[in-house]
């Protein structure tokens, strides 16, 4: 029973780290980026190649996967995304879904379409008994990493100078520019961090979610559910939503296997009927 809860939390945490970058770009920068999963996939493949082919230790590969996806995000933001910020949402959707298809084809062509597996070190395959609950080391690591990420993101956004500049740049880019804030730099950094987090999520989650070229398409819907249910106003919303969805999904599959696949959607529908703007949503600002 508690093991199910634990597995649900771990699954929710993976969802969170994958989707929080999207919550940031969609909620704060008002950019619809359906290609978010492509960055997660990039991070996952980077980690798989580093660990399996180059023998990089798994724990070292995680930050490297973050960096790789962040760099990729930075380059693409400067080259491509910078041009669509001011465009209508439909343009952004079409643009980013196009990127997804290109990413899928590119990975398929270069890496093949089979599932990738990241070789985990032996100490992450252990299992403990904590207070009578059977717990896997790997899932424990996921929870620890994701909790740390969530906490630091929330602190950075609320209490640092960068956070307040970012919020200012989002609320009114023109005035922010007038006050000497380098808006495009801030957007670029934010986008890169969001992509990097997706990459980290891809690397961490590969073991649980699997990793193949269709990853961005398969999980796009999950990212969007997290962001919709959580509301786009804060990291906290996405965090809570991920936890609720993760636990609902795992518990649903455990207790009512036949219905399990739908639990996550039932929760989404329920929440959205109750609060159409999401758990922590603000009423649309523009």
């Amino acid at each position: 029973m508690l093991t199910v809860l634990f597995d649900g939390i771990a699954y929710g945490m993976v969802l969170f780290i994958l989707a929080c970058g999207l919550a940031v770009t969609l909620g704060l920068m008002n950019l619809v980026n359906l290609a978010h999963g492509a960055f997660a996939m990039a991070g996952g493949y980077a980690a798989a190649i580093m660990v399996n082919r180059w023998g990089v230790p798994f724990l070292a590969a995680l930050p490297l996967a973050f960096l790789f996806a962040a760099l990729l995000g930075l380059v693409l933001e400067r080259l491509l995304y910078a041009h669509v910020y001011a465009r209508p949402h439909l343009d952004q959707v079409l643009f980013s879904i196009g990127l997804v298809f290109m990413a899928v084809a590119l990975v398929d062509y270069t890496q093949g379409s089979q599932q990738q597996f990241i070789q985990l070190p032996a100490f992450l395959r252990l299992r403990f008994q904590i207070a009578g609950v059977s717990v896997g080391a790997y899932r424990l690591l996921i929870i620890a990493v994701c909790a740390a990420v969530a906490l630091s993101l929330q602190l950075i956004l609320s209490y640092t100078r960068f956070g307040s500049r970012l919020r200012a740049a989002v609320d009114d880019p023109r005035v922010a520019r007038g006050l000497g804030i380098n808006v495009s730099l801030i957007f670029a950094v934010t986008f890169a961090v969001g992509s990097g987090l997706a990459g980290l999520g891809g690397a961490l989650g590969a073991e649980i979610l699997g990793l193949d070229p269709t990853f961005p398409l398969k999980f796009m819907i999950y990212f969007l559910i997290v962001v919709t249910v959580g509301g786009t106003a804060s990291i906290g919303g996405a965090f809570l939503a991920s936890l609720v969805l993760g636990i609902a999904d795992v518990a649903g599959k455990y207790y009512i296997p036949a219905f399990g696949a739908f639990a996550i959607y039932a929760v989404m529908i329920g929440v959205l009927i109750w609060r159409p703007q999401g758990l922590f949503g603000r009423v649309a600002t523009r």
Partner: protein
Amino acid sequence: MQLNRRGLLGLSASAAAFAIGTPRGRAADPVKVGLILPMTGPFQSTGRQVDAAARLYVQQNPAATQGRPVEIITRDDAGVPDTTRRLAQEFVVNEKVSVLAGFGLTPLALAAAPIATRAKVPLIVTSAATASITQASPFVVRASSTIAQTASIAGDWAARNKMGKVVTLVSDYGPGIDGEAWFNKRYTAGGGTIAASLRVPLQNPDFAPFLQKARDESPDGLFVFVPSGMGAAVMRQFTERGMGQSGIKLFGTGDLTDDDILNGMGDPALGIITSHFYSAAHDSAVNHAFVDAFGKANGGLRPNFMAVGGYDAMGMIYRALEKTGGNTDGEAMVDAIRGLSFESPRGPIAVDPATRELTQNVYMRKVEKRDGQLWNIEFETFPAVKDPANTKA
């Protein structure tokens, strides 16, 4: 273009010469085999294996009978049934192929079957494994196996080895449900008890809740049938959950430990028991030669059960042409294929004349490490297993 009378005469003369020339030339005309396979997309591994094996066969046997070469044309359907059907039609109408072969998945084979019936062209299934395919057209012959064939043997074996209680975990799609049904039938007939039958959605990101459920039943064994890529995920989470240590045996049909990706699964795969018709580690001279030649021609790739299906499909075509004396008429060829029996890399096989299914050995295998690589090592043989689904008892 202006044609004067002399030019016109010349033209018709050469046309006449051509028309007369063709019957004489026919002896050397290649027999065309149209391979339709998923060469891209999630099932490209199937396509790659079958195509490579079929080409290897042709390379090893340049002329079939009476000096007629065999030509393989491969087209990619990317796993989409509409495309399979269109390609089959193009093959029959434009390329005038004598045989259609390939078909990675059941829906793909079913999409092409009506074309085979109408064009009276033999259709040899190298991969798809649902029992109903051979009933879809009298021109369908199978060179792989049915799920019933392998899953029922897994059931027999589990019952015979005193596994008192088993949980089944299958993907919720046609082949998965077939596997579950046939396993259950034979296992319970042998005196076993099914503790729970779990069906996992096909698009399932996390097996954790299902495996936990299975664990809580504390069965003697966990029978798994999932599409081949997902098998590895099940295995790893099974190990991660420490289910092996708590005395649960993970077993299934051979799709679980596909030779093509077995090495990438790593140590969690060790000790897993599967029932299947082909292992690259099968100990016979024919198989050793096949594995060596296949590896040499494809940069060290290991053939899997898909490859052996492609190889044997070509074997059937060659032997059928031998029997018909080079006649490529569809009905004559299917008649010639019925009742064929020969030694394949997988062991002795025979085409059941009644069902057009293969009668073949099904082996119980265990994953072991040999020379640093993982192999499915056969430890028990169920000889000459007929397909139980289409055979009327």
